């Protein structure tokens, strides 16, 4: 019976990461290092059946399975980038808790900054125009009346014998 089950297990085949992201490009991890890295990579993956929880934080069976797969891939020497690519290949960018800075995601970040920059340009150009306006159009800006050319002229005329 055991031999039969063994034969059956050998016949079984599940999709393997090697089909999609190639051979491992890192060092196989073990022990505490493996536990720590599993937690770190799991924290970067979104649990697809949860509300905003990472694979590391979710107790759901789906997340537990995904975490198990992350652990297995790390123990085989797959790098963090390879593992994230593997999950992204199946689930798309949705599965990444830190989306890549490209496409629509990049536009949502860049465009508001661009709008602020344009606002600054408008304010600065307005300020410069006000500064460059003719002196006759402006009110005296000095606090000391004796420095004002108008007052000085009036004084001169009054004091004239």
């Amino acid at each position, binding site marked *: 019976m055991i031999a039969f089950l063994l034969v059956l297990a050998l016949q079984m085949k*599940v999709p393997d990461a090697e089909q999609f992201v190639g051979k491992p490009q890192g060092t196989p991890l073990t022990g505490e290092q493996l536990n720590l890295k599993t937690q770190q990579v799991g924290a970067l993956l979104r649990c697809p059946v949860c509300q905003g929880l990472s694979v590391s934080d979710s107790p759901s069976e789906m997340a537990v*399975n995904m975490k198990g797969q992350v652990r297995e891939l790390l123990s085989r020497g797959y790098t963090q980038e390879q593992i994230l690519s593997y*999950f992204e290949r*199946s689930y798309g960018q949705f599965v990444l808790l830190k989306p890549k800075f490209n496409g629509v995601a990049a536009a949502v970040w860049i465009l508001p900054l661009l709008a602020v920059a344009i606002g600054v340009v*408008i304010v600065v150009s307005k300020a410069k125009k006000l500064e460059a306006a003719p002196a006759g159009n402006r009110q005296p800006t000095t606090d000391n009346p004796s420095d004002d050319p108008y007052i000085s002229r009036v004084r001169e005329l009054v004091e004239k014998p």
Partner: protein
Amino acid sequence: MNRTVLIIGLLIVAVVVAILFMGLGKDPAHIESPLIGRPAPGFALKAVGSNETIDLTRYRGKPVVLNFWATWCVPCWDEHPVLTANAQMAGDRVQYLGVVFQDEESKIRDFLEQRGWAYPTLVDQAGKTAIAYGVGGVPETYFLDKNGVIVAKFAGPMSAEDIQKNLQKAMQ
């Protein structure tokens, strides 16, 4: 100059608002599969009720309807008779396959014996096949063309119309 700058600014704001509005209009539960148009991940899994291992490549040459489900999933109970009836109608022209994950084989066998089975049902140990297909919940169904390429994905319980509509893409 100021008018030009203002127009550019307004355009940028309009684009940002449009992008955000598009996001609001989407169903957050719907995940677009990046696997559409790509070869289906290969697998060979144990069939429920027999000691046979079924390899997906066995069905190369005809469309495959690959349904991920589980006995604890209530919408799957409603979908099961629809799939069974469609599989019986299709006969040999289309291959239906069930893949059960996060479940026990004894429960699957009991479920199928009570509700009937018309096509092979396979057990996905540790959900590895489901993960490779990007399954986010059950039921979820993938439609493969005769070359083994995924042409459509349907999330949720399907009606007969949903099956036929997606199957047409697989039969082209």
